[in-house]
């Protein structure tokens, strides 16, 4: 009883109970999710095992702490606990006084600190680090494991503190603390990240890490021996300095206005510099990493990017959902296999992979139009399920039509790219590890023009029409826009991009197995598009690169009990969470973001799913 009296000042009620339970069970769910993989012979044992393995306690504690933080936050909001705003006013010399101004920020910081503590606890509870295949850190295993969590926690904490702004009323005149200035924070974060990258080899496979030096000596380091490095650096610096100068000049008159932190207007020059820098990284980076990472990171990410920018046309630009995207990928790949004579049926003429690309585009596009025309006349959501079915059908046919596709056993070797024009000779052996870099550059040679093409398409009449259809299909139709035509066009463009990606990756795969074209690929590409930000090409690319990298990273550095087969669990969760909390994605396109906001306010629809549901349903 005394206990209850003691906590009576918190005035706990049913909502608190619900909140606490939700948080606690989210900890339990995390524990179950990350527990060991079960089997049906001993499912109960597996479940118990997962519940009682050590790291689970970390998550349970995390759940409890989260519950406490949430209840605290709620109490602050409802005014039961005095907000620390008043505390900050009374004690202006507190070191966080520039940071802690609103109750919301306080709680953010509190949750950040709790995340930090929780992470340390989790790190303490979890078992030893799984040594990676390079065998670098057997000695530091426990340390680096702990460190990983520590860094995750620090990132959380920084994210929490990110939206630091001065309180509008008190307007402290003191100079902002280190955390108070976003610029300082970004710089600090970048420097910290660099240091981190140099010291901690598990994160970056880059050869110039300190550890690599220690093991192999500097002679292997090619970074400073390549002339293109200097060239690029010079160009980048020049463009960058110019851009920064211009931006400063442009920003000066506006400095009297209160600047908003979240919408930084990027000038044309800065943008060019960013693009140049990105291209620089994309071209140069792969040279300095080990062949394993060249293959697994850059080539896979290249294919992912190509697939994602194609699907982005359908999901992002046109606002349609295509769940059978992999079917067109498979069509492209099998078209290439057919034309390079890798299937049991023989083509009338054998081509090299370069020349089968137009055929692949044609096949994928025709399939897309045939599928899209009847479906898109109806509601947009029918497209989703019809494409889902189509993807499954292609998979079933590829597995079972043994006389045409060789079935599950896989096709013969698929022909590769080669070209001999005058003096220029280019021949690629998709399977040879020595040609990995060349394959990557070939991919890049496809991706960059397609990027430009789609970007200008988005800013052309077609792109504006897609936006019009997305925002209000009825109004667009009343202006004489043939919605069906543009929807089918977007769908067919997406399909043909997927076909091209199919040809490229069929060369890399060597021989095709139906399991490479399962539905999961579609979902995966969808996650890439959604996570980065639909309709935002930059967002999609960075999202694809990030997810591609993190999945590869997790293979080496098992996150708790992560197994490769689990990735779709997490990707599914990413889809749901993104849709709930940030439907425009991490790096949204401005227009799409505004559409989602308008849609939340009851204006427009932000998709092309036919007529919107009548009125709010809640």
């Amino acid at each position, binding site marked *: 009883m005394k206990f209850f009296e003691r906590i009576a000042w918190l005035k706990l009620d049913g909502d608190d109970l619900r909140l606490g339970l939700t948080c606690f069970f989210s900890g339990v769910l995390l524990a179950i999710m990350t527990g060991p993989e079960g089997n049906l012979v001993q*499912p109960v044992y597996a479940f118990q095992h997962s519940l009682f393995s050590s790291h689970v306690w970390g998550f349970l504690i995390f759940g409890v702490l989260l519950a406490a933080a949430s209840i605290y936050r709620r109490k602050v909001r409802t005014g039961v606990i005095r907000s620390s705003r008043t505390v900050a006013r009374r004690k202006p010399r507190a070191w966080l006084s520039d940071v802690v101004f609103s109750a919301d920020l306080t709680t953010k910081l509190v949750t950040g600190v709790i995340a930090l503590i929780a992470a340390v606890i989790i790190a303490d509870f979890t078992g030893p680090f799984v040594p990676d295949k390079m065998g670098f850190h057997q000695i530091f295993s426990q340390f680096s494991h702990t460190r990983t969590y520590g860094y995750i926690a620090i990132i959380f904490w920084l994210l929490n503190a990110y939206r630091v702004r001065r309180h509008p009323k008190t307007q402290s005149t003191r100079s902002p603390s280190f955390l108070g200035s976003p610029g300082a924070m970004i710089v600090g974060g970048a420097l910290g990240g660099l240091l981190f990258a140099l010291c901690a080899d598990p994160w970056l496979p880059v050869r110039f890490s300190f550890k690599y030096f220690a093991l192999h000596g500097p002679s292997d380091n090619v970074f400073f021996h390549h002339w293109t490095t200097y060239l690029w650096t010079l160009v980048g610096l020049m463009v960058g300095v110019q851009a920064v100068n211009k931006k400063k000049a442009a920003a000066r008159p506006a400095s009297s206005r209160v600047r908003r932190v979240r919408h930084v207007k990027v000038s044309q020059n800065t943008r060019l510099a960013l693009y140049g820098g990105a291209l620089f990284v994309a071209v140069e980076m792969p040279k300095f990493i080990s062949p394993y990472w060249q293959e697994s990171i850059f080539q896979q990410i290249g294919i992912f990017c190509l697939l994602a920018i194609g699907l982005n046309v359908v999901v992002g630009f046109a606002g349609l*959902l295509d769940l059978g995207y992999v079917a067109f990928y498979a069509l492209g790949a099998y078209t290439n296999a057919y034309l390079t004579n890798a299937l049991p049926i023989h083509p009338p003429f054998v081509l090299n992979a370069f020349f089968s690309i137009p055929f692949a585009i044609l096949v994928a596009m025709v399939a897309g139009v045939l599928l899209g025309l009847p*479906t898109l006349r*109806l509601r947009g959501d*029918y497209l989703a399920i019809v494409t889902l*079915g189509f993807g499954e059908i292609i998979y079933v046919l590829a597995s079972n039509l043994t006389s045409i596709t060789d079935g599950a056993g896989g096709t013969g070797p698929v022909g590769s790219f080669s070209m001999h024009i005058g003096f220029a000779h280019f021949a690629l052996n998709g399977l040879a590890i020595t040609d990995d870099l060349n394959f990557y550059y070939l991919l890049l040679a496809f991706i960059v023009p397609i990027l430009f093409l789609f970007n200008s398409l988005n800013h052309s009449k077609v792109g504006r029409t897609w936006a019009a259809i997305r925002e209000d299909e009825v109004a667009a139709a009343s202006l004489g826009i043939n919605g069906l035509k543009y929807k089918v066009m977007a769908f067919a463009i997406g399909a043909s991009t997927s076909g091209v990606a199919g040809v490229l990756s069929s060369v890399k795969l060597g021989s095709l197995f139906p399991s490479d074209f399962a539905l999961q690929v579609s979902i995966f590409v969808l996650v890439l598009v959604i996570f980065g930000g639909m309709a935002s090409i930059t967002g999609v690319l960075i999202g694809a690169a990030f997810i591609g990298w993190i999945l590869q990273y997790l293979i080496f550095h098992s996150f708790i009990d992560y197994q490769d087969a689990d990735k779709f669990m997490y990707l599914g969760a990413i889809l749901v969470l993104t849709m709930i909390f940030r439907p425009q994605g991490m790096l949204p396109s401005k227009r799409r973001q505004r559409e989602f906001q308008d849609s939340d306010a009851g204006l427009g629809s932000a998709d092309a799913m036919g007529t919107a*549901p009548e009125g*709010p*349903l809640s």
Partner: protein
Amino acid sequence: MASYFVLGIFTGLIYSMVALGYTLVYGVLRLINFAHSEVLMSGGFAGYFFLRFTMHATHISTPVRVLILLGGIVASGAVGAIVAIAIERFAYRPLRRRNAPKLTYLISAIGASYFLLNLAGKEFGRDPSATAQPITQSFSFTLWGAQITAFDLVLLGVTAVLFLVVNTLVSKSKVGRSIRAVAQDAETASLMGVNVNTTIASTFAIGGFMGGVAGLFIAMSSNVDYNMGFTPALLAFTAAVLGGIGNIRGAMVGGVVLGIFMYVPIYWIHQPFYEPVIGFAVLVLVLLFRPTGLFGESLGRSA
């Protein structure tokens, strides 16, 4: 021929149970519930565990078998309903509160589906395993050359009873009235004092119960597998469209008709893997020529 026909009918009954979930949710939300396949899967797993823990003895008398079967039906139906409600609560309601565009619902649902699918794969393993069989396999008779087993009869009985119950529930009861009101116009219904959130949750629960029971029957007729829901759900959606989406009786008939359409051609082509292909072809043809389905859309609007 006749045996394929009968096989089609009885497989179709399972599809019609699943199709009901699609149709009901479509009626109130105007959305295809992409996560319905996982309702099926969880119902299948619930049935699997229930039967595993109850069917220990080697000789079980018939009344006990009946009880076990009923218990299995209730267990898998209940788990299906709970999972469906959870899907609604976590993947749909936050979006509904925001009046989000339809695209986000579909993406959120497919995400929830993949999450549940792989969570089951992780917790229960990724290999299929056989379910204990409470229905006797020694009994069967032949009707016009087609063999009909006790399993088929039980399936027919259960489906008939459940459909009668759901039909009565939707057309007669208070919950059913509010479901129909929300299906017609959610906003007006809420003004008339209908609790829209509860109604939508109960719609998911009814569809989820049927889906869970269908999952049990799929588990009993073949195996349980974390991936077991996908193809039946796709075909059941076809059945719902075939019958006219939003139409409860249409779902029933659509499932059976689709089953017949799918299995009778197998008699000639002898390639069982073609059945989803045929089902998909039916879907495209229906959308092409009669998008409102055989019976039209009664709960929803026309296309």
